[in-house]
């Protein structure tokens, strides 16, 4: 490429605005008196230099901060749309029913537009992806030339460069000792001072210039972590329900781990608690604790189909909200609970005399086929529907194996009815399919037990997010809490010229300059931007 050689001898890459070494304006036509645009040190950015091929055009598109800002704004507005109504994952009905039922025509429209799963929609992901690309290209387009320019800068600068800095002043009267004092002050303020032919360049906190690029790297890593989730096995997220007293296999663990739920505990705040008395009177019952006392087991030896696995106890743990059980990269969280029917008790009763001939207790998860009550009385369980409903043909059937609505067909064998009587028993209803029976099974009681709802999570991508987050924070702090400051003190035309530049916080720079020039004959340079404005205000 046709590189540009500056009069100071430095060879600049094609497209450079200000000579990397001396800061002279390379474009001769640009000789206005205005202040220099110091962003990226006037270095040669690819996006500002080439615009021919399709790759150039794509590069230029994504390297534009304007495009980046638009992407941010569009994402911002899209995100707002997603908070108007609850998202799909927070509703407990099928979305096609829920939105219209709860919010009428607006809800229906919201659902039809796909806003019920906005953050998982292809276009939202596309927006995020475009922000990611923009981050990469924007950063590369700027950081490389900026790095080169800052590295190539020389102490002695071109007159035009100094004059057109925002903070600039010329001094005719200056003593040799003044420069020494200034140098001492600069060093005391932790400036890195370089000297060349009696000219001074003092610089500090250059690393703060890299802050934005460091935080962009953090963000890119963070977004990359999001992509890892699409790799199978990298991310496990399963629900697990375990009844009290039961042991269940933890899903997605290669049948390695088992959890036994000993007890589920639900505690409420004590109404008589002095501290919370008033609040509890207003709010009613407030839950204090959800807890499952569990035992974690690991399978020993090889898995043999059909055989009960041999389990080794690893640990006992109380899983509570905020205190998940963690093992080997997996975490088990307390997420919910429900109460399930455990057993129902009936009494075999003569309908006319109300005399009972013994009780039958049916274990709802593991019922017996026959219950012998002695003295020739017995009850046979002919059929059992744990989650009873009438199917399309009007036949009794079961929806699931969970005893949500148990129903039974019993045969009651009694000495006076040796053939037995058949009775259909469900909650709050009894049907006698073959006419009037002499006996009935009177409902006596129901036992319940708790079922703990867990979420099993394994997130191998978590560390990527953590690293991304840390790098982002480092970058943001580096860029926000330090300022890159440079002060030039140079001899030009028999005068001492002072110019200063900072990437932000001009107020701080000026305060520092005052302290640095204190005790010398050198006068405080002007803030040319402010002076221009004041002139305008007066005019």
């Amino acid at each position, binding site marked *: 490429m046709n590189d540009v050689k500056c009069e100071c001898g430095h060879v600049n890459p094609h497209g450079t605005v200000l000579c990397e070494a001396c800061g002279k304006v390379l474009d001769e036509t640009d000789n206005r008196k205005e202040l220099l645009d110091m962003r990226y040190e006037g270095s040669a950015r690819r996006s500002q230099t080439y615009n021919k091929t399709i790759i150039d055009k794509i590069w230029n598109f994504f390297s534009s901060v304007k495009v*980046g800002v638009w992407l941010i704004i569009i994402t911002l507005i899209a995100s707002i749309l997603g*908070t108007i109504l609850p998202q799909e994952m927070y509703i407990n009905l099928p979305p096609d029913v829920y939105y219209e039922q709860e919010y009428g025509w607006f809800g229906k429209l919201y659902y039809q537009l796909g806003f019920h799963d906005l953050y998982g929609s292809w276009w939202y992901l596309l927006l995020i992806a475009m922000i990611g690309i923009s981050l990469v290209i924007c950063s590369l387009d700027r950081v490389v030339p900026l790095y080169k320019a800052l590295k190539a800068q020389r102490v002695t600068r071109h007159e035009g460069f100094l004059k057109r800095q925002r903070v600039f002043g010329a001094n005719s009267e200056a003593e040799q000792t003044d420069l020494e004092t200034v140098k001492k002050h600069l060093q005391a303020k932790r400036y890195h001072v370089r000297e060349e032919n009696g000219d001074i360049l003092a610089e500090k906190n250059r690393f703060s210039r890299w802050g934005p690029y460091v935080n962009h790297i953090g963000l890119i890593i963070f977004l990359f972590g999001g992509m890892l989730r699409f790799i199978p096995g990298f991310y496990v997220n399963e629900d697990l329900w375990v009844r009290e007293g039961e042991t269940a296999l933890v899903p997605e663990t290669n049948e390695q781990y088992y959890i036994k739920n000993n007890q589920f505990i639900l505690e409420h705040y004590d109404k008589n608690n002095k501290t919370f008395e008033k609040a509890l009177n207003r709010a009613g019952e407030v839950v*204090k604790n959800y807890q499952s006392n569990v035992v974690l087991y690991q399978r020993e030896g090889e898995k043999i189909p059909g055989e009960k696995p041999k389990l080794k106890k690893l640990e006992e743990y109380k899983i509570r*909200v905020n205190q998940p059980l963690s093992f080997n990269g997996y975490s088990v969280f307390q997420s919910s609970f429900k109460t399930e029917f455990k057993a129902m008790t009936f009494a075999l009763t003569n309908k006319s005399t109300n005399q009972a001939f013994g009780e039958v207790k049916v274990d709802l998860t593991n019922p017996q086929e026959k219950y012998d009550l002695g003295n020739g009385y017995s009850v046979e369980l002919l059929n059992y529907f744990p989650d009873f409903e009438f199917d399309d043909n009007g036949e009794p059937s079961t929806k699931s194996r969970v005893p949500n609505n148990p129903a039974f067909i019993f045969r009651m064998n009694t000495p006076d009815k040796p053939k037995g009587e058949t009775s259909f028993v469900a909650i709050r209803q009894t049907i006698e399919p073959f006419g009037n029976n002499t006996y009935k099974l009177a409902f006596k009681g129901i036992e319940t037990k708790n079922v703990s709802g867990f979420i099993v999570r394994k997130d191998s991508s978590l560390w990527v997010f953590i690293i991304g987050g840390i790098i982002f924070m480092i970058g943001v702090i580096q860029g926000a809490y330090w300022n890159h400051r440079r002060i030039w003190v140079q001899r030009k035309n028999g005068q001492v010229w002072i110019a200063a530049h900072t990437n932000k916080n001009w107020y701080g720079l000026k305060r520092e300059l005052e302290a640095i020039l204190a005790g010398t004959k050198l006068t405080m340079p002007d803030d040319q931007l402010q002076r221009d404005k004041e002139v305008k205000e007066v005019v």
Partner: protein
Amino acid sequence: MAALSSNLLFVAFILYLIATLFFGGSIKEKKGLSEKKETNKWGKIAVFLTIVGFVSQLGYFITRWIAAGHAPVSNMFEFTTFFGMALVGAFIVIYFIYRTTLLGLFTMPVAILVIAYASMFPRDITPLIPALQSYWLHIHVTTAAIGEAILAISFAAGLIYLVKAIDQTKSSKRTFWLEAVMFSLVTVLGFVAVSSIFSGMGYHEKFNWVDKHDNEAVVEYTMPAIAGPHEGELLTKDGFKPFVEMPAIVNAKKLNTVIWSLIGGIILYGLIRLIIRKRISAALKPLVKNINLDFVDEISYRSVLIGFPVFTLGALIFAMIWAQMAWSRFWGWDPKEVWALITWLFYAAFMHLRLSKGWHGEKSAWLAVIGFVIIMFNLVAVNLIIAGLHSYAGS
């Protein structure tokens, strides 16, 4: 302990009020309010009172923490009060960097309004639900509030900029929107006034109503019902009969409160206009005549630069760590999470616009105002209207 705590908060509130008056005095007397001038006597007293008030409020915070057994940032009253305290704290820090009392004149009223608004919510010490029982409650919520408070300083500085920069001699879009900001602030005062009056009167009325699932329910209003509930039937004798009945999907009680706040705001604003005979922003203009525009612009930008990392850490990173522990996922697109992201995206856009498009001065000041509106929306509307997992904050 709880009583002591309330008293300390009250003392802080009064001190902030007096400090504001002194900040006002410090402006009047002084000529040439730009950089590097010494603070006058009035200003020194104002800053001193502010610091004493802050310490008193810190006392409220600590004593309430002891009384409750957890950091008092777990409900709307506690969080909003803490936000007010953080605002004062952020101002004190920025004051010692830039030494301008004018910033206090604009920040303190905002902090006072925030604390007054907070006290309209139930002030009882509430127990923590299981999800909140974590030391991350203290870390996440306080850091997020401090971040938001520092960002809010940029709003105060932006407001100063706009009051000074906008020409009030003829009306324009700019004067209208700046006055709209002033009106919103007055409306918060209206809400506080109306709520205090009705609660002082002990106003109550009950309605039977039918909710959107056709269930009958009872609702208790604490202000006269202008907007009545769906198929509402007034149960209280001599109660106020609603002018309009709301459909079932609208929360009529909250809407009613909004209507009353607006009425209060309009009356107050009307009175102010009647007395001063010009726009509020025009009336404030003499106060800012000595400040240098570039200087406030820099304070505004600097506050964003200081606040943004704190906000990111508190409202996003700490939030994610806690969410991972409590809800098993660090991000779940809960409305409050999304609004924290929106706030973050907004300030990210702000900084890019400033850096590369050169949006300094007035544009930047408007952005600071919008940023504050987003923060307030997240605090008020997301808690009260868009209830999600953070809905415990709404009580």
